């Protein structure tokens, strides 16, 4: 990364229902969660996705696995629009 902008991990889910379950689980684990419009790079999944700071990616994956929340895809993005 050369821009100095923040990096985030974004988790995609196959339904709103699952995405909200993911948010609940990650909030309960005190991770820095934001729901964002699903980036096109995640395909055409649910209308929103769950974003955490990139350094929390592994923790988030572990939390979601423990909570048995099925993740449909995960990507890393830069905060190009300063979201």
């Amino acid at each position, binding site marked *: 990364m050369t821009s100095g902008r923040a990096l985030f991990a974004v988790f995609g889910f*196959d*339904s*709103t*229902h*699952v995405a*909200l379950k993911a948010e609940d689980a990650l909030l309960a684990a005190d991770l820095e969660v934001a*729901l*964002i*419009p*699903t980036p096109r790079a995640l*395909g*055409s*999944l*649910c*209308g*929103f*996705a769950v974003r955490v700071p990139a350094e929390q990616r592994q923790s988030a994956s572990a939390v979601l696995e423990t909570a048995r929340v099925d993740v449909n895809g995960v990507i890393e993005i830069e905060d190009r629009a300063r979201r």
Partner: protein
Amino acid sequence: MAAEHPIRYFDHAATSWPKPPEVVDAMVRAMAEAGGNPGRGAHALSLGAARTIAGARSALAALLGVPDDRDIIFTAGCTSAVNLVLKGSLVPGDRVVVSSVEHNSVVRPLLALAALGVEVSVVRADAQGRIDADEVERAVRERPTRAVICQHASNVTGAIQPIGDLADIAHEHGSVMIVDGAQGAGHIALDLSALGADAYACSGHKGLLGPQGIGALYLSPAFQPTELVQGGGGGDSGASAQPSARPDRYEAGTGNTPGAAGLGAAARLLRARGDEIRATERRLTRRLHEELLGIDGIRVLGPPPGEERVPVVSVTHDRLAPDELAFALERRAGIAVRAGLHCSPWTHETVGTAETGALRFGLGLGLTDDDVAVALEAMREIVA
């Protein structure tokens, strides 16, 4: 013109009224504060709507004893839920066994399916409207049967059917158990994980105390009817095929967010106060039932006092027609009841009231001993 009498509402079997303040407040809040399209975006109003629906689904699943709330499908009502499960699971050549006391919400879609080649075998209930599990077993044993279909409770007789036994019979013979729970949900404490139904259709606005325009269908994890409606849902927009995941598979189109908000609030209320509400319903129903039996010329339909029933008491009179009684009750004492066939001509035929229909008292949250006393006194005066 102001009403001469306060409304004494005995039509809960048609729809509950008044709605609890929590239900009304939740619906207003949903429209004012969560008015986006659920699941279609990530802005605050859309997320608010999605959270409203998810919260309602979770609350209803907890109330009904459903471990995975994805198995709760929101529908436009109980009739829509029944149509989904019947038309999504039965094909020409299938055979079903159904009780003779079903509501038109079951009878009409079944007869539409019969016209396409589904065989409908009817098991007759007794004169009190009760289904005998042994007779259902005999019918299921006759030939391969795809589904056993039965109401949980009658909107005419109040009889509660032995769904657990029927589910056991269905499963022993490789059939699924489909239940019309319009009069059961809310009025009967439910644990759907233990009941044995593969599908249980609920009305949101009767015993569940929610608004009109929303219902729910429980589908067991292994039961996968075909969806009847395809379309957008906010998820997997690039795929041409309908998503296969629940609940999205069965909820194409924009959901009823205000309705879900109201139903969710009602489910939370019933989780907290359901036992108390049901105990009052049972006590008032029994009092009304027993004292109506003491009025000359009155016949009360359904099981005798002391036997379990949902809070429905239907009567006929040997001289006055149900419509005359209903009109007189409202004029005399502001009592709201329903006369006629109650969309259940099969039931009236079974219990011998197809020609006359009946006058139905449907009890529920908000009624008091005073209301029952006034209703009884009015009946005594009207038939004197």
